[in-house]
């Protein structure tokens, strides 16, 4: 899938495992402004389900895309409010 949005910030949580990818994503999103997109790079296979679940269950964020690359999982989260 092509990436069709501007990335405001990239968070590298490669190597980190549960719960850190979600926890650090939350902190990084807090530092963004409304409408900005955070790119999260993770190696934890659980991040696919966990970050999607977090985005669904959390107000003010939207999961735009999740890409399963070679060993790195990329997530694109927009801050909506």
């Amino acid at each position: 899938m092509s990436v069709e949005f501007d990335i405001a910030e990239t968070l590298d949580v490669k190597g980190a495992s549960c719960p850190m990818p979600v926890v650090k994503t939350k902190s990084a999103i807090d530092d963004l402004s409304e409408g900005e997109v955070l790119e999260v790079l993770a190696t934890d296979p659980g991040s696919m389900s966990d970050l999607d679940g977090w985005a669904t269950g959390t107000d003010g964020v939207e999961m735009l895309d999740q890409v399963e690359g070679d060993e790195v999982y990329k997530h694109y989260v927009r801050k909506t409010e």
Partner: protein
Amino acid sequence: MSTDTPDSTTGDAPGGDAEEAPSRAELAARVEELESQLSEVAADEGTKKMSIVATKGTLDMAYPPLILASTAAAFGYEVTVFHTFWGLDILHEERSKNLKLSSVGNPNMPVPNVVGALPGMDRVTTSMMEKRIDDNDTATIEELIETSLDMGVEFQACQMTIELMDYDEDDFYDGVTTGVGAATAIQDMADADIQLLV
């Protein structure tokens, strides 16, 4: 047939009770009161809450409450973790860095219980687990506590067990709440959307 219809009824008050109809001003005041109560309830419901009671102090049992607390905080939950009995060791700055894994009582351990019961075996199994935690880049207990505190998780140390274990309030991480008891925990549980005993 009916004998309870007073003759004086004017027609607009069926039943004709002795109670006087509330005035417009009274009704307006009542509506205002209810609206303010409703907005309080709505505001209260806006914040999701989780209440965890942590009672265990082994290395393996220290992780679940901390992982769930920090993750719930990331979801926007207001989280309190009430630590009592061995769970206090998780908040104890020094002891939290030396939590042990028991080598007996868990059939999944790589050694039979009879071997696990030998002196020094807890140290061996704890070292094995610590190495795995390190190799896997799993967060340490200290990291999880600091992260949770940063995210606004409230850690409470049960006052009764602080005294029972002869700990000092200064033994705990900065930011830990002391001077609380079961009633505080019950209050948190009553208000919470999720309640867990670990």
